[in-house]
């Protein structure tokens, strides 16, 4: 046993909704005596759920990037943009700073989420001992930055509503944006299903 006691070893459990500490029981339907939320030693079927949601998100991520997300139409031109080409256009239009922000939110963050969540799942399944503290940090990073990917979805929604000049100029959403929105929701759900305490379970050392 390590110097710092873990709730699991003491036979107590912290409520993940209100933080009340109470006696752990084997009853799968145990409820927090204070707020009534379900009590679990560890999140139920955490690995299976996280995997399922992550794979679903990964499948939708393909159409989200292949299909264009937005159509810009003017008198003589019609321009369909994917997520990536939207970033390139923003860069060319003279806003490299914003292009970097959009690139980060729409491309770096989702890819980072897939890589980090996949790595965390595999390392937990193999009861890896390596760098638990770093892995815990990675998970918190994913949790914090995850919802910023919604950025592009909101941009398309706003431009579609704003650019409404009949035949002169018109912006329309295209199916890619639907897939992308769903990817963001699924990756968020995936991260929420993951139980970071698993990183620290089944370990001998305590670094």
């Amino acid at each position, binding site marked *: 046993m390590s110097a710092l006691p873990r709730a699991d070893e003491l036979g107590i459990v*912290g409520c993940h909704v209100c933080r009340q*500490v109470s006696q752990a029981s084997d009853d799968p339907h145990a409820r927090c005596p204070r707020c009534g939320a379900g009590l679990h030693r560890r999140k139920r079927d955490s690995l299976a759920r996280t995997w399922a949601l992550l794979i679903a998100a990964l499948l939708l991520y393909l159409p989200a990037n292949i299909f264009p997300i937005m159509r810009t139409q003017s008198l003589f031109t019609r321009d369909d943009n994917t997520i990536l080409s939207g970033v390139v256009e923003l860069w060319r239009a003279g806003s490299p700073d914003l292009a970097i922000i959009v690139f980060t939110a729409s491309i770096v963050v989702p890819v980072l989420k897939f890589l980090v969540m996949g790595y965390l799942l595999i390392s937990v399944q193999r009861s890896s001992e390596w760098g638990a*503290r770093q892995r815990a940090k990675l998970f918190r990073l994913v949790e914090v930055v995850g919802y910023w990917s919604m*950025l592009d979805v*909101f*941009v398309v929604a706003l431009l*579609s509503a704003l650019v409404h000049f009949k035949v002169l100029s018109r912006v329309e959403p295209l199916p890619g944006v639907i897939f992308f929105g769903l990817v963001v929701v699924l990756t968020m759900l995936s991260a929420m299903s993951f139980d970071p305490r698993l990183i620290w379970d089944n370990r001998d050392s305590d670094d």
Partner: protein
Amino acid sequence: METAQDLIVCEHCDTVYRREVLTRGQVACCVKCGAVLERHQWIGLDGQFALILAALIVFVIANATPIVSLGLSGMSSATTLWGAVIAMWNDDSQVVSVLTVMTLFFFPLSQILIFGWVLWFARDGRRAPGFARAMVALHYVKPWSMIEVFMLGVLVAVVKASTYFDVIPGAGIWSFAVLTVLITIFASHDPRELWNVTRETPA
């Protein structure tokens, strides 16, 4: 043996600590995994209630006023948040329309109303009717409220549009900016602290 009140369990690695009283600016971190255990709550309950009230007023303005308007050779076009929602619905992107309504209207509004409700009673040290349910709801709604992301989205949209159009900012854009600031202030405040500062009112 300490009572359960004195213990705090790290949500990220399950390590158990005895609760310490924090002073201004102090943050308690888990020594094992580095996650934040607790922050000092530097705004009192009255202050938090005032901020929530302000947020509610600004939220109404943000929803009711145009965010930006575009001008193109004499024509102009403005949109509110709801304009964007309706545009997505009519352009066969109902999924996006629903996502937008939920993350920018429904969840933020329920957050403001529920938090305001429990704070109103907590100011006298009481637990509001339905307190437990309200606190659970607050916990689940929190990650899905995306006002700050929308604010950045507005800026990106404005820059993209300004290449072809004249952009005139409306009251909505300022309201969303103020909301973003208010959300940032609240980010350091854990509503779960209300469990410790309120008592069940005798029926």
